[in-house]
């Protein structure tokens, strides 16, 4: 049967007569006893404690704690799973849990970003790093926390790579509580109590001996650990105990319920055009990034939606957001649109040199063939285009920023999809007064020149 966790503080959280699955003299046994002492001193109800264990010898500890919740995870990821549990508990649930991670030196490095981010977020997670300088479970290979000179299975001549200062990294990641102890320190239990009690993120690195591997190849006994820490420049004791950081759940809570949903714009219904579409129409607009090609096309698409048409719009740009070409493909039709691509455009509008290059490279010029209407801004050469090509002074009349919008609105008016005032209203809803006036003036200008 599942052990009941309804009990309040236990006399012991470790299984009575627990048989540790560790080698003789292994520091992990010390660590677990000190953890048990800390939990007992805090008198935490067992159901309020979650122990998240990593892969490695120390990760075997979950089976030794029969009354608290345990989650045995993948290698290095224990802190990330613990962070998810703590976030869900503290921000969205009862905020009841104390989440404790047991991880080794190997797991601490492979999962370093999880430690760093948990510290930055400042979630209520306490991480105990059992640093015995080697991967014990796989045969004593050197880790990123192996001190220089240490002989391991993978550094038979002695390690020449300086170890990471884990506490230093966490200190500089805004961790509010950081401490380093030897597994045999009398103070360890009190430090763990403090680390668990705080509502903040806490990391306690515990230096210990892997008697199977670290001691076998190196003249190492427990008392040498202090000297070893000194040589690495590893500070011992409590290194950081900040009280100036708010836990994440205190900082994020006030946002709840106050933020609006994604702001939507109501699309105006527009009178059905005098000459309704009977078949799908494909329009391609190619210009430069930063010149509102995609957002202007969206306004045009919404205008068409307002008339009751089915519309699809897809956009393309290089991986960068603010340079190079920007292109939109719109399909408008009287019935639902299946294929959202355009096999042969009916209209191709080219507004800038970037757009012109993309139209050639991506084959739009070729697809336009002899049947499409091609409009090219007057500032560009159009020798490469045969067929129905028109030069329009779009950049001149509307300015580069509104050239795409002006082009599409001019098209809408010409094809009698919408009146000038429909277009102006749509632009006003989306972009405001000034562009709306610019469009009104520009569309009339092009109409009077009979440019289209």
């Amino acid at each position, binding site marked *: 049967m*599942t052990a009941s*966790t309804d009990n309040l503080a236990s006399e012991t959280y470790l299984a009575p007569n627990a048989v540790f699955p560790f080698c003789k003299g292994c520091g992990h046994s010390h660590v677990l006893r000190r953890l048990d002492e800390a939990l007992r001193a805090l008198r935490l109800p067992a159901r309020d404690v*979650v122990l998240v264990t990593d892969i490695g010898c120390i990760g075997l500890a979950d089976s030794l704690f029969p009354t608290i919740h345990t989650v045995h995870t993948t290698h290095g990821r224990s802190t990330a799973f613990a962070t998810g549990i703590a976030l869900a508990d503290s921000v*969205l649930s009862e905020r009841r849990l104390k989440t404790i991670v047991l991880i080794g030196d190997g797991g601490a490095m492979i999962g370093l970003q999880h430690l760093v981010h948990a510290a930055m977020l400042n979630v209520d997670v306490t991480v105990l790093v059992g640093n015995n300088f080697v991967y014990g479970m796989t045969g004593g290979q050197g880790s990123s926390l192996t001190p220089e000179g240490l002989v391991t299975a993978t550094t038979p001549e002695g390690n020449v790579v300086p170890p990471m200062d884990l506490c230093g990294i966490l200190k500089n990641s805004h961790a509010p509580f950081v401490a380093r102890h030897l597994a045999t320190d009398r103070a360890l239990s009190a430090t763990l109590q403090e680390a668990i009690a705080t509502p903040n993120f806490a990391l306690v690195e515990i230096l210990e001996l892997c008697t199977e591997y670290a001691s076998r190849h190196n003249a190492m006994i427990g008392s040498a650990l202090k000297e070893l820490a000194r040589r690495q420049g590893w500070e011992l004791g409590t290194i950081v105990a900040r009280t100036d950081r708010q836990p994440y759940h205190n900082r994020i809570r006030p946002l709840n319920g106050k933020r609006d949903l994604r702001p939507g714009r109501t699309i105006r219904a527009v009178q059905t055009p005098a000459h309704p579409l009977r078949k799908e129409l494909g329009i391609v607009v190619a210009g430069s990034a930063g010149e509102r090609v995609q957002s202007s096309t969206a306004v045009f698409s919404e205008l068409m939606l307002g008339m009751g048409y089915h519309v699809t719009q897809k956009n393309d740009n290089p991986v960068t957001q603010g340079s190079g070409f920007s292109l939109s493909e719109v399909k408008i039709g009287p019935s639902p649109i299946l294929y959202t691509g355009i096999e042969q455009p009916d209209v191709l509008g080219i507004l800038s040199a970037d757009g012109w290059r993309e139209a050639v490279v991506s084959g739009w010029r070729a697809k336009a063939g002899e049947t499409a209407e091609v409009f090219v801004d007057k500032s560009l050469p159009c020798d490469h285009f045969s067929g129905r090509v028109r030069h329009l002074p779009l950049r001149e009349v509307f300015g580069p920023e509104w050239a795409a919008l002006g082009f599409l609105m001019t098209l809408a008016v010409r094809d009698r999809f919408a009146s000038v005032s429909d277009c102006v209203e749509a632009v006003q809803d989306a972009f405001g007064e000034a562009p709306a006036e610019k469009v009104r003036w520009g569309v009339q200008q092009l109409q009077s020149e009979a440019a289209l």
Partner: protein
Amino acid sequence: MIVEGAVQAGCKFFAGYPITPATGIFKGMVDMLPGRGGLALSAPDEISAIAYAIGASLRGLKAMTATSGPGWALMTESVQFALMTETPLVIALVQRLGPSTGGATQGAQGDVLLAEYCTSGGYTIPVLCPATAMECYSLAILAFTWAEVYRTPVVLLTDKEIAMTSERIDDHALCPMTAQDRPTAKAGSAAYAFEFPQEIPGFRPVGGYEKVTVTGSAHDKQGRLQKNSPETVQVLRHLEEKIRWREQDFSVVESDLQAGAETLVVSYGVTSRAALQAVVRARAEGTAVSFLAIKSLFPVPKKAIVKALAGIRTVIVPEENLTGLYRSVLSSLFHGADVRGVNKVGSMITPGEILEAVKEVQ
């Protein structure tokens, strides 16, 4: 619409990492979840994003993350953890051109098998594949229902051309239903209690009133790590059996079969839209063609496929990858038929290209 569907489904937790073309889902969740009593936050990488979501689900919340191919590659270790620990989770995988970083702003259907076969040992991960904005909404809700009810990770598979294309929707036709919740465990029962292997064990949250033991390692019904015990093997079988046994419940297809047709076009996702247009054109030209769009790619909706195959001599499977990934999965069902692919990478397959393949048969 995936965001709207997820919110409607009752999703309360989202952790994300930006990647084109899935970033819109991340941003949408950041905009929508807090106002609905949920939490959406940035993770420092995709591994953290999915682990945060799994952690939140272990605590009892409906949780989701979203990514594209390169991020999916980083997530698969944790997808297996969710499967092994029977933790409900929805992952929106928005495909882009691969391999490697490929083309961030180009669509593709190249991750179909990566999505399904990311697990060691031959387990089935349900994969839903919407083709329209409306389906993104309804299948997001269904993905949550499956994840919760069957206690499994579920992949909602789209691509750039679905996730980043705007189109008209009929908001009156949107499903008003929310997703179902995970079954809850009876007091005192084992964490992964089942009598028959196909049973779905009741869920008990980490941090709840009864102790929970969770492990990504092979375990017994109590969740205790065990090596090779008969009960552990039972649990390993159960993880697949619970899906396989109710295969029929996972079948979502749209079939448009024509009497007398000897050619069947089978497609999915964005390509199924081009395929249907090609079928419409072929019929307008007097060619009889049947059409089957598959929305639930895995488990494979075998019955619906076999039904569509009646009288069919040629099957055409258009999909936007080099060698016909899903076609290779279906081929064993097509025995006796002439199976052809229409394949392409770098841009969408056009109705014209599919129509050409249909005409070649005639």
